[in-house]
């Protein structure tokens, strides 16, 4: 046993090295963490610094310029005229349509999963929901192309676009609904049952109001997720020059406009301001959600 003690004393020298290694490790963690968050700072800086010049009221109320207008403006050294109105209306229309379908269905399925938590059938539904959540958005665009563009509207359309977006929203709303409801204490539901309240009223008058902020957060996050999607819309909505209110016809969207601007050498400068607007909307939605979560936790 004495040999043990000696061994330990020998290792006393190694202790300073260990303390040093400990500090180096912490230092590396620190540095890497800051490297990790640097893109967000850099990207936002880039968007703001290059995009702010273009933004004025007209940016929101004018439709996108065509390539000749842009070319002329560039030649004269002027800011490119026009705005992203057609994109904004297109996005609004498609997001609204997607939400009108995805929110109620998502809520219902979420409630179903919550009520039937342990049954084997519910587990299958949950697994399928999870699989659906992981499907790349381009695949959803392709699916919507066949289901809507080819079969229903016989041509690219806002309806097809919103279908793809709706399918994207659905799993997100389902899962967040289920998670929100699961966090409501059982006793609240039991209190309602004990008072003889009918099942559907418990859902409508007790569960949903109690979990309202959580449900709303899930919905807002789902919306913020689809607002920025480009790929599926390329296969479904295609884009349009002007504002379009006909859901059976092709329509623009903010990300689609950005893609068009990017691909057109005359309009490339518009990408920054449009991206900035897009980012601002996404960030606002995210901040509102975070605020709701924080309020709920208090």
């Amino acid at each position, binding site marked *: *046993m004495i*040999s*043990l*003690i000696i*061994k*330990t004393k020998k*290792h*006393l020298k*190694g*202790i300073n090295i*260990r*303390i040093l290694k400990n500090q180096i490790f912490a230092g590396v963690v620190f540095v890497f963490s800051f490297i990790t968050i640097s893109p967000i700072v850099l990207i936002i800086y880039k968007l703001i610094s290059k995009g702010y010049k273009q933004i004025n009221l007209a940016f929101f109320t004018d439709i996108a310029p065509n390539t000749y207008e842009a070319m002329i403006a560039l030649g004269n050294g002027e800011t490119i005229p026009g705005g992203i109105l057609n994109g904004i209306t297109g996005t609004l229309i498609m997001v609204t349509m997607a939400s009108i379908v995805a929110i109620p269905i998502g809520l219902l399925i979420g409630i179903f999963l919550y009520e039937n938590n342990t049954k084997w059938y519910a587990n299958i539904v949950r697994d399928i929901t999870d699989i659906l959540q992981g499907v790349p958005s381009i695949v959803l665009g392709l699916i919507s192309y066949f289901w809507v563009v080819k079969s229903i509207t016989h041509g690219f359309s806002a309806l097809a676009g919103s279908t793809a977006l709706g399918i994207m929203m659905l799993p997100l709303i389902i899962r967040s609904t289920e998670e929100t409801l699961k966090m409501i204490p059982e006793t609240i539901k039991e209190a309602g049952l004990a008072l003889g309240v009918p099942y559907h009223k418990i859902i409508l008058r007790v569960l949903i109001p109690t979990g309202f902020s959580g449900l709303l957060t899930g919905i807002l996050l789902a919306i913020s997720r689809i607002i920025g999607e480009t790929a599926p819309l390329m296969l479904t909505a295609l884009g349009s020059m002007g504002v379009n209110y006909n859901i059976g016809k092709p329509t623009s969207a903010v990300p689609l406009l950005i893609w068009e601007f990017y691909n057109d050498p005359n309009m490339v400068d518009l990408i920054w301001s449009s991206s900035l607007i897009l980012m601002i909307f996404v960030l606002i939605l995210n901040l509102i959600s975070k605020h709701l979560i924080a309020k709920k936790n208090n």
Partner: protein
Amino acid sequence: MSELIKHIEAPVLDIKNLSVSYNKEKYAVANVSAGIKKNRITAIMGPSGCGKSTLLRAINRMHSLYPNIETKGQIDLNGKDTSTMSDIILRRKIGMVFQRPNPFPTMSIYDNVIAGYKLNGIRIKKSERDEIVEKSLRDVSLWDEVKDSLTNKGTFLSGGQQQRLCIARALAFLPDIILLDEPTSALDPIATKKVEELLIELKEKYTIILVTHNMAQASRISDYSMFMYLGELIEYGKTKNMFINPINEKTEEYLTGKFS
């Protein structure tokens, strides 16, 4: 008026004016001074919130993990100021056993016993390792029970066995002092009895400081007892004397069950 033992001959641990606070105003431990006698069991008792665990954890500087905790005062180990020792050395000389048995779930029983060496990156020959594991497990009377299943995960033992494993883990470093923070409060009576018997055996080689909320336990196994209340050391004396004839009023109230 508090009555403290004025003088312990050559205390192995000497606590001098120790104060611990969680935020600037409130003191969880307020100006405690005491010498701990070698090879004895010293119990720290008191009602919930009196600061006994905080005092115990200050001895092996567990509070340095939590930045909002401030510690003042000095603790000497074998005459040497512990603040001159690094955390690593200090914690090899002073081992700790926790309230809930916490063997490492991903390690086998064998590895749990020498976990201290593994965590510190100390390389020892297999023969020495085997020697340490067997000795430590024998010392806690676990060897016969587990010698054929040393490769099983530590969490497959009963609560009492797990706690003895944790004690073995602390013994593997041959520390001077073993700190135990309510080690039997999560165990059933039979396991508790085994641990208590173990501690009485261990005091021959080690110095034991034990926090307990169970007065009966303190009276059963400890040689010296400290009574704390609201962060202060109210009374400190030989256990027998304190229980039969407490000097301080508060001590008497506690011992007669007026508050817990």
